[in-house]
Every structure is written in structure tokens, then in C-alpha cells.
């Protein structure tokens, strides 16, 4: 009886340690082994970027001039109902994990969009688009801020370390506009202490395509 008791206790421990149902496993997943609808992991983002950047068609469209990575976004392609039904049977749904990698090419105001299958590590689609449809990246926002803060004329007007910059997109609506088909941002200056805007600031526009800062532009957006 004592042996049976010990055996059952060990069996109990074994099941407790190794026999937990799948629902608990799912909860315990670490981020680096994502489930189908988890956000992209940092590793997946890096991988998607590398795979897209190495693709011949992406390279061809981006050319040799200046280009920038704009975003890596998760794309979940919906499985059919039959595939989804296995969720309730205790099996993970089979949702392919894709990433959409968007680049911007300054020369020619062009966007390039590559869809990467993260499992096969292949680019499955490459398309180009009008650069005006490519969103501004946070890296470009930071770049615009650097250009402004290093601008000599503005440095004379801006008390150092008092203002931070915020941006708005400038999309020109006609060919006579200096920002026509260029990557432009309007700059707002915000007092870091009072959080208010610098009311008397000049109208400042950064042209990221030409890396120039201009003052006195009237319209900050279309």
C-alpha cells in the first residue's frame, strides 16, 4: 500500500509538471515564440527588414539613392472558417505571419511595399506607390528636428534647450509649391517647461528630400 501511495504521488507530480492542457501553455508563451495573432516580435521585425532589403525587386525600385525604412507592420491574413474551427478543438489556428515592410525613396518620391512571409522567409509581393501615400516615420521626425536645431538662423532665435519640436505633414497641392513631390514637414516649437507653443515662432518647413530648412512658409498642410 505504501508503494502504491508513493507511485500515485509520483504520477501525480508527473502529470502536474508535464500534462497541463494547452490553454495554460498558450498563456505562458514568451514573446519570441509568438502565437498567430501576437504582435510582431523585435526579432521578426529585424528579419522582415533584412529579407525585404535583400530582395532584388525591392532593390531595383529603391535604386541607389537615399532611401529610408518607414515601417514594419504585422499583416494577419485571415484563414477560412474551417481552419478557424480548430481553435475550439484545442489546436492553434493556422494564421500565416506576414510583415509588410514599407520603404521610401526620396529621389522620385516613391514608396515601396514588400510583403514578407516570416515562416518561409521570402518576399511574396512587392508593389510601388506614390510617395505622398507613404506615412512619415518617427526617424524622419527626429531627422527634421535635428536639421532645425542645427539651423544657424533658428539657433539665434531659439533659446537653447527650451523648446522641443513637433511636426505636421506638408503635402503640396500644386506644382508651384516648393514641397511638390518632396518629403516636407512643418515644424512646431513647444516650450518644454510650460508645454505651450512658441507663439511668435517663424513658420518653419523642413524639406527632407533636399535636407533644407526654410522659414516663412505660410501653409503647413494641404
Amino acid at each position: 500500500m505504501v508503494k502504491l501511495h508513493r507511485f500515485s504521488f509520483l504520477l501525480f507530480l508527473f502529470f502536474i509538471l508535464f500534462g497541463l492542457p494547452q490553454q495554460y501553455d498558450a498563456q505562458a508563451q514568451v514573446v519570441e515564440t509568438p502565437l498567430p495573432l501576437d504582435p510582431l516580435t523585435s526579432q521578426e521585425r529585424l528579419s522582415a527588414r533584412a529579407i525585404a532589403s535583400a530582395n532584388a525587386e525591392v532593390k531595383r525600385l529603391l535604386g541607389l539613392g537615399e532611401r529610408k525604412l518607414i515601417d514594419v507592420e504585422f499583416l494577419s491574413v485571415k484563414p477560412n472558417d474551417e481552419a478557424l474551427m480548430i481553435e475550439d478543438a484545442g489546436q492553434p489556428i493556422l494564421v500565416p505571419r506576414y510583415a509588410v515592410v514599407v520603404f521610401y525613396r526620396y529621389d522620385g518620391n516613391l514608396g515601396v511595399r514588400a510583403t514578407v512571409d516570416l515562416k518561409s522567409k521570402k518576399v511574396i509581393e512587392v508593389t510601388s506607390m506614390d510617395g505622398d501615400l507613404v506615412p512619415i516615420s518617427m526617424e524622419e521626425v527626429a531627422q527634421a528636428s535635428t536639421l532645425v536645431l542645427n539651423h544657424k538662423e533658428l539657433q539665434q532665435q531659439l533659446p537653447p534647450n527650451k523648446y522641443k519640436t513637433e511636426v505636421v505633414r506638408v503635402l503640396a497641392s500644386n506644382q508651384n509649391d516648393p514641397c511638390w513631390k518632396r518629403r516636407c514637414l512643418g515644424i512646431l516649437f513647444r516650450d518644454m517647461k510650460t508645454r505651450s507653443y512658441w507663439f511668435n515662432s517663424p513658420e518653419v518647413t523642413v524639406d527632407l528630400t533636399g535636407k533644407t530648412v526654410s522659414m516663412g512658409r505660410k501653409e503647413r498642410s494641404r
Partner: protein
Amino acid sequence: MNIRKGLTLLFFMTALFVASPQTVFAAPCSSPYYIEQQFPSTGAEQTRWRLCWRMEKKYGLIITSADFRKSPTSPWVRVFWDARIAEIFVPYHTGTPRFYDIMNYNWPWVPITNTHCPASAGKRLGSGPDICKEVRDRGVSWADDALVRRGQELVLWGVIDASNYNYIIEWTFRDDGTILGRSGATGLIFAGHEETGHMHTTTWRLDVDFNGSSGDSVYLGTHTEIGLTGNDTQSQIFNETGVTWDPEKFSEFNVYDATLKNARGHQSSYRLMPLRWGTARHDEAFTKNDFWVTRQKVGELYAANLPSYVLPSDPVSGTDIVIWYSGSAHHRVRDEDGIHDAAGNWTGVTQMIWSAFTMMPHNLFDKSPLFP
């Protein structure tokens, strides 16, 4: 039975329970992106939601799958595959500027602090991109004299840092199966436009998979009054199109599944109903309609492109559909928004203004929900 025998039996039974092959739901997302919420939040379950969420740059809080169970013994019914903001369009009354705050930017999220989401109100979920999860008392859900029931709701919200504005993207899942989507705007008035009124028109993209992705159809619900009689009708929308909201007709979108019926044999649906204070019509074509229905296609994510998404106009009958809804918060500038100080600087903050919609189950329950 002696104690040893009893313990042995208990061990065996526990071990068998834990290790037996169970047909448990395999969550499609991991913690903290997976949420299950039973109602009432304590005691025996009556209803339950399960869902996944994701906080993304640009879109803010996205709901990636949401299922509802009307009783512990009922099957789960999927409502959303993906629910997100598709645009926040901000045209100023002077004609310019006109901001597309989703399509043209990759705005980051605002980190949620204990001030946003104190422990007394809820719980922060996620790290880096994070959100606030609250389970709220929602007031009286029904009453019959002294017989009263207070309701509860699960509320998830995150914040987009859109330059001078913060946008709160909020999703609410109620104990009676009702869903609310809200978009709130707060922050500093755009510099140089402190006196200029403007709109914050939010368009939601709702990939509704009612009881699964296939077999969904959309009907336009309409109310009319003729003489002393009122009449409620609905007509099916067969092809991709936009529809205007008529306040006198209580226009609503009703989404039906081909097969889902309640125990009374009535066809179940979810009704998308506006919660609005007015209707913003601008020069931009996508603002000419308040509702749109499209066939679900990968990559169709921006509201501004809706007029092109419906050309050619594909069939949307008994298929995988997406419904879109636009609601506007009209910001008439007021002294409460702030003031110019002695140096001419603007100080102050715009109080939160909301635009919203609700989705209500119709003939999903067999009787009054949460009723004794």
C-alpha cells in the same frame, strides 16, 4: 476507506483530470494580448468575452478577434476578426490645414502611466505599447420597479501621440453582448489656429466575422413614420457601397450570418448604430457617406480610399464583409480650450471630445439577458 486510500484516490483523480485530453480553446494570442472576461466579474458566470488586442503605431489599439458567449453552456460566437481605426480626419474650417492623422503618419503610442490607469480603476497591460484594462460598473442595465440589475463592461483603451493631440482609442465589451467603439481627442489646439473650429472625424473599420467569416450579409435598417403608424424595415445591400445616415430614419447597418439563429428560431444579427452629434460633409469623397460596406480584402485599411475600394462594386451578400462607420467630433473652439498668456503663448488643454458608435446584438439571446 482509510486516509491513505482516500489520498491515493484523490491523487489519481486529480492527475487524470489534469492530464486528460480536453478540447480546450487554443488562444490565438498570448498573454497579455489575450483577455477573457466573464460577467458578472465575480461569482457564477452568465456571459463571457474572449479577445485579442494589439497596440500598433499609427492605428492605436486594434482588437484582433472578439468572441462572445451568451451563457456558460452556449457556443462561442465570433463577432470581430479585426476592429480598428481607419482614419482620423481633421479639416479646419478655414479650408486648411486638413490632416489625415492615420494615413499620413506613424504616430507612436503614449506610455500609459499610473495616472492614466490607477490600480483603483484598472490594470495596465503590455510593456512598451501598453493599454489600460478596466472592468466598470455601467449603471442600471435594466429595472422593473424594485427588481434591478446593474451592468458591467470590459473597457480597453490606449493613446496615440498625434503631435499636439492625444487620441484615446477605446473599445468596450458589455455583459449583454453590446460593443462600443469610441475615439476621444484631447491635447493642445494646433498652434496658430487657436481660434479655428475643426472636425475630428473618426472612421472605424470593422471586419465583422459574425459566427465566422463566411456567410455574412448587411442590411440597411430604416424607420419611417406615416400618419400615426411607424414602420421598421430593412433592405439587403448586395454590392459594395457607401450609405448616408438619415437621423429621421434611424439608419443602421444590421449584420446577419447565414445560419445563426437563437433558440426561438429567429435569425441573429448585430446592429451597428451611430452615437453622434451631427454629420460632417467635406469636399473629400470618403466623407460623403457615414456607412460603407466592402468585401474583406487584404490591405484595404484606409478610409480615405473607400471610394476606390468600392470600384468595381463587388458582391457583399453571404460573404466575408467589412463595415465602416464615420462619426465626427465637432470642435468649436472655446475659452475652456486655453488662453494666451502675457507673453502670447498658448496655455491650456482641450477637454476630451468623443465620437462613437455602438453594436448591439439582436435576437442573439433567447430571452432578456442577465435576467433572473
